[in-house]
């Protein structure tokens, strides 16, 4: 092999790589937080008694789940301005990521609600609880416990998906790696470092989700 690896050239850029990680984590956190809210609302809409609401939720979920994120991001960033709705790259990235994460989360959450036996709802009603109370105490908590592993998997996927927003010029780790590439031309080394950083971040996220699981969802069920 004649190729000479040269990681030393990249040493001066360590702070930029780190900044990229920070931006990526920030993007992913926003997408996960907003996506979770969208997911819960959409799952509720899909279970609602109003037909238009159900259809709208269904359309949103299927549309997002069956088209690539790249096209969604392009549509939002390049397409919406022609309708007079211009977004900055970062705002567009957060909108696109949240909508994407929300649709996947909605399906997982709906699955969790479906898994709660009907008797639970009836028991809640019999106890005189209001609809919201039934949802909060009788459905949501046990449902969350069931879906937590699938949900945290989706969240890690959201973290990995952030790499794609570099193509709508939103700044995060991939975009920063690409800009370092244009100066140093050490493409392979740069992407080895970036890949390792993504791997480290997803392992960190997995640990975090595991810790949350132990703290909040590991109570015994009888």
């Amino acid at each position, binding site marked *: 092999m004649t190729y000479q690896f040269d990681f030393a050239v990249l040493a001066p850029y360590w702070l930029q790589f780190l900044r990229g990680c920070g931006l990526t984590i920030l993007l992913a956190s926003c997408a996960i937080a907003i996506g979770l809210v969208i997911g819960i609302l959409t799952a509720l809409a899909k279970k609602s008694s109003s037909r238009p609401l159900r259809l709208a939720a269904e359309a949103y979920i299927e549309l997002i*789940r069956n*088209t690539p994120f*790249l096209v969604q991001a*392009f549509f939002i960033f*390049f*397409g919406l301005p022609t309708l007079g709705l211009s977004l900055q790259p970062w705002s567009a990235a957060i909108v696109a990521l949240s909508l994407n994460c929300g649709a996947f989360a909605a399906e997982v959450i709906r699955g969790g609600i479906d898994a709660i036996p009907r008797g639970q709802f009836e028991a809640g009603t019999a106890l005189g609880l209001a609809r919201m109370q039934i949802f909060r105490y009788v459905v949501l908590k046990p449902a969350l416990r069931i879906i937590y592993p699938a949900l945290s998997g989706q969240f890690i996927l959201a973290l990995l*998906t952030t790499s794609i927003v570099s193509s709508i010029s939103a700044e995060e780790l991939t975009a920063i790696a690409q800009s370092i590439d244009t100066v140093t031309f050490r493409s392979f080394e740069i992407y080895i470092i970036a890949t390792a950083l993504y791997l480290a971040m997803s392992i960190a996220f997995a640990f975090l989700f595991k810790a949350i699981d132990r703290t909040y969802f590991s109570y015994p069920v009888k």
Partner: protein
Amino acid sequence: MIRSFGVSEALAILSGIQSTVVLSLIAFIGGGLVGLAVALMRTSDLAPLRRAAGLYIDFFQGTPLLMQLFLVFYGLPVFGLRVNAWVAVTIGLTLHASAFLGEIWRGGIQAVPKGQTEAAIALGLGYTHRMIHVVVPQGARLCMAPTVGFLVQLIKGTSLAAIIGFVELSRSAQIIASTTYKPLLAYGLAAIIYFILCFPLSRLSASFERRFAVKT
């Protein structure tokens, strides 16, 4: 010069379907073959094999597909392989698919009750026969839904080939969007085509899930 968005522009985007479908199929078949090996290693009796397959799966599931494509795209020339974008993208997607299919199929193999394997051993069947005649046929049913579901992920994943300059559906939409200044139309059309490709598979996956669900 700004071109108007007409029939020929729509056809130019449609022509991207071919590369998207071919790429998805090659990656699915290639990924299936390598994935089978990964699944068998992951469930093997030899600890080093299990661990190696585990690391392989963790790597591909813990890093973005885009990075995997970049690594192959920029990495192959480093190892003296001068290849075009087609080969690089195919290799990248195949490796990606093999890790995910390997993990899905591991689940299927392990879902087959242990007693089945023990019964096969008691009957004197060797590893190969045990797998071919006892474990795989039973496990395969359970894997149908997630396998078809992953095919949807793979079709969507091929869009990332556009970022390294490979012309498929997304890239052709991008080209048309920038020459006609009608991004809403171009990306909307691309999204509709992806949807037409993926939605039936999603439905198929859902119906497999109902049909082959483990009865509890």
